[in-house]
C-alpha cells in the first residue's frame, strides 16, 4: 500500500512540476508593457502628432482600467522625431535592440529613414498613419493602415465631383511636403475620371500670405478648389477665397491631413459649407467611439477628433490582442521570437474590432476601410457619403 501511495505522490509531484514549468514559460516577465511610439510632436505637424499621442495614451489608460495586458499595465513611451529623418534614426537606434514592437514612425520621411534600421534588427513597426507605397518596401516588418493612395483616394474625389456635377475645372492648391504631392496626384485621378480638369497651384512651404496665390488660382476661372496643404494654410486660403467673393462653398474640398484643429481655428466661419474628407465617421454610434470623442473634446477645447485620431488607439489595442493571443511574456530571452509573433498577428489580424469599424488585414494590407465625405456646418461635419 505504502508503495502505491509513494508512487501516487511522485506522479502528482511530477505533474505539478511539469505544470509549473509550462506555466512559468508563459508567465509575463515584465512589470509594465512599454509600447514605444516614434511620433512628431514638434515641428510642422505637431498638432497631428499631439492628437495621435493623445489617442495612444487614451487607449493605454482604458486598457489599464480594464486590468492591463495579461495582468500588467501598459505605458506609451513617446519619442519625438520632430519630422526630422536623422532624429528618427537616432530615436530608433535607442530602442531597436530592446523593445518588443514600435508604433510609428510618423510621418513618411521618418518612416523611410528609420524603418530600414528596424528591419535590419527584426523589429516590427506599426506604421499606422500612412499608406501602402511608403511601407511596402519594408514588408513584412511594417504594415499599411490604408490601401494604396491611388486606390483609396480617387473614389472620394469622384464622389465629390458627383455631388457637384457643374464642375468642369478645379484648381488644386498643393504643398510639396511629404506624401501630399502623391495624394494630390490621386485626387486628380478621381476628378479626371469624372471629366473634371485639374490645375495645380503650388503652395510654398514657407508661405504666410496667400492673396497672390488665390488671385493666380481665380485667374484660371475654376469651378472649384481642392486644398492639399497644411491645415493652417488651407484655412487661410479658404478665407482669402471667401474675401474675394467666392460663394460656392461646396465646391471647395479639403483633404484629410488638413482636418485638424488649426483648420477650424484659422478658417472660422469661412469654412461653413465646404467639403472635407477623412477616415473617421463622427456620427458612429459605437460606445467606445462616443466615449473617445467626448473625452477628446474635453481635452481639446471642444474640438472634434482629427482625421488620424483613432489610428494609434486601434494600434495599441491590436498590440494588446497580439500579446494576449500569442501569450507573449516580454522576456528579453524570447525577444526575436515574440517580435515575430506580434508582427504576424497584426499583419493578418481577422475581424479586428476597431473603435469605428471592424476590419481584417491580409499580409499587412487592410481588406476594406471606408473614406467619409462631409460638409462642414457651423464647425461640425455632416456626412455626405462614403467610399470604399
Amino acid at each position: 500500500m505504502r508503495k502505491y501511495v509513494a508512487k501516487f505522490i511522485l506522479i502528482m509531484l511530477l505533474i505539478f512540476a511539469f505544470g509549473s514549468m509550462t506555466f512559468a514559460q508563459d508567465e509575463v516577465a515584465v512589470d509594465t508593457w512599454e509600447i514605444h511610439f516614434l511620433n512628431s510632436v514638434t515641428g510642422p505637424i505637431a498638432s497631428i502628432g499631439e492628437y495621435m499621442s493623445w489617442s495612444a495614451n487614451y487607449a493605454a489608460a482604458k486598457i489599464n482600467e480594464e486590468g492591463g495586458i495579461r495582468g500588467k499595465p501598459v505605458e506609451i513611451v513617446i519619442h519625438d522625431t520632430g519630422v526630422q529623418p536623422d532624429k528618427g534614426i537616432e530615436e530608433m537606434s535607442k530602442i531597436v535592440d530592446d523593445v518588443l514592437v514600435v508604433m510609428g514612425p510618423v510621418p513618411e520621411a521618418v518612416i523611410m529613414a528609420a524603418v530600414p534600421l528596424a528591419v535590419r534588427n527584426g523589429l516590427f513597426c506599426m506604421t499606422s498613419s500612412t499608406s501602402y507605397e511608403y511601407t511596402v518596401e519594408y514588408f513584412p516588418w511594417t504594415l499599411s493602415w490604408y490601401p494604396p493612395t491611388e486606390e483609396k483616394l480617387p473614389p472620394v474625389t469622384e464622389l465629390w465631383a458627383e455631388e457637384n456635377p457643374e464642375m468642369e475645372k478645379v484648381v488644386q492648391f498643393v504643398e510639396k511636403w511629404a506624401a501630399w504631392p502623391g495624394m494630390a496626384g490621386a485626387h486628380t485621378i478621381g476628378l479626371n475620371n469624372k471629366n473634371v480638369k485639374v490645375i495645380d497651384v503650388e503652395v510654398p512651404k514657407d508661405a504666410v500670405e496667400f492673396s497672390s496665390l488665390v488671385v493666380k488660382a481665380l485667374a484660371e476661372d475654376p469651378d472649384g478648389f481642392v486644398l492639399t496643404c497644411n491645415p493652417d494654410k488651407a484655412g487661410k486660403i479658404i478665407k482669402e477665397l471667401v474675401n474675394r467673393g467666392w460663394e460656392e462653398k461646396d465646391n471647395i474640398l479639403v483633404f484629410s491631413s488638413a482636418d485638424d484643429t488649426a483648420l477650424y481655428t484659422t478658417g472660422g466661419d469661412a469654412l461653413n459649407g465646404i467639403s472635407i474628407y477623412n477616415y473617421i465617421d463622427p456620427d458612429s454610434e459605437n460606445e467606445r467611439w462616443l466615449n473617445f470623442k467626448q473625452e477628446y473634446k474635453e481635452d481639446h477645447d471642444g474640438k472634434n477628433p482629427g482625421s488620424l485620431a483613432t489610428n494609434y488607439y486601434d494600434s495599441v489595442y491590436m498590440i494588446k490582442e497580439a500579446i494576449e493571443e500569442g501569450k507573449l511574456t516580454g522576456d528579453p530571452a524570447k525577444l526575436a521570437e515574440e517580435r515575430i509573433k506580434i508582427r504576424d498577428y497584426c499583419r493578418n489580424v481577422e475581424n479586428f474590432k476597431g473603435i469605428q469599424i471592424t476590419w481584417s488585414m491580409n499580409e499587412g494590407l487592410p481588406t476594406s476601410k471606408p473614406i467619409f465625405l462631409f460638409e462642414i456646418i457651423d464647425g461640425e461635419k455632416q456626412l455626405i457619403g462614403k467610399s470604399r
Partner: protein
Amino acid sequence: MSSTLMYFLGFSMTYILMAWSIYLPYRVKHLHFLAVATMAVTSYMGGILSVNFGWSFLPTLLLSIVIGALISYLISHTIGNAPTFTVVIVGITFVFIIKTAIENTDYLGGTIGLFGIPVLDHPLIILFAFLLVIGYFLYRIDHSRIGRAASVIFTDENLAKSMGIKPKQIGMLFQTISGGIAGSAGVFYAFFVGSLFPDFFTFHLIGTLMTILFIGGYTTMWGVIPAALILRGVPMILPSSIASWRLLIYGVLLVAIIATKPKGLITKKMLWELLKKRSGS
C-alpha cells in the same frame, strides 16, 4: 555593439569631418557654409550612383572628393579673399539653392527623400580610418608654412600681405580642401544612414556645425572632436522628451562658452601649455 553606440559614433565622426571642413577655411576667417551645400550635392550624387548605377562605396567616395573640391574651387575664384560676411552669404545661398533644386527634382526623391542606398558593412572602421587620414592631413597643414601664414591672415590681413603672404591663394586652397572633405562627408553620411532628405541640409545643420566649431574651439583642429562627441552624444543619452530641447541646449551652451571662453573650450594656447608641462616633467 549596441545600435545606439554605433549611431552615436557614426554621426559624431561624420560631424567631425564636416566641422573640419568649416574649421579649415575659418583659419583665414572664412565661415565657409558652402561645405554644407557641397555635402548635399555629393551625398545625393553618391546615393544616385549607388542606387541607380550600382556604384560601390570606394569609387563613389573618390569621385565625391573630386567633385566637392571642384565645386569649392570654382566658387573660390570669386570668394577666395572675400570678407567673412560675404562668404557666409554665398554659402547659405547655395545651401538653399541646392535644397530647393533637390525638393523639386523627382529623380532625386523630391520632398520625400532618396532611399535604398546600400549601407556599409563596417561603417565605423572605415569612417575612423578616413578620419585619421584627414586628421593627419589637417595637422600637417596646420603645422606647415601655409598654416602659419593662415594664422597671420587671421590676425591681420594687411600685415600678412606686407609679409608677402597671398590671402586669396590660401583662401582658395583652404576652400577647395574644405570642399573635398565635405564631399567625402556627404558620401559617408549617405552610406551610413542609407537614406537622404533635403530637409537635413538646412540652417539646422549649419547651426549645429557652427556650434561644434565655436564651442570646441576654432583655433585648433582638436576642439571639434570633443564638441561633436558631446553635442551629438548628449541628446542620445537624454530622454526623448528632453532631447527635443537640443537646439535650446546648443544655443545656451554656445552663448555660455562665447561669454566665458571666446575662443572655445580647446585653444592653441591651452595645447601649448599642456605640451610644455609634459616636456617639463
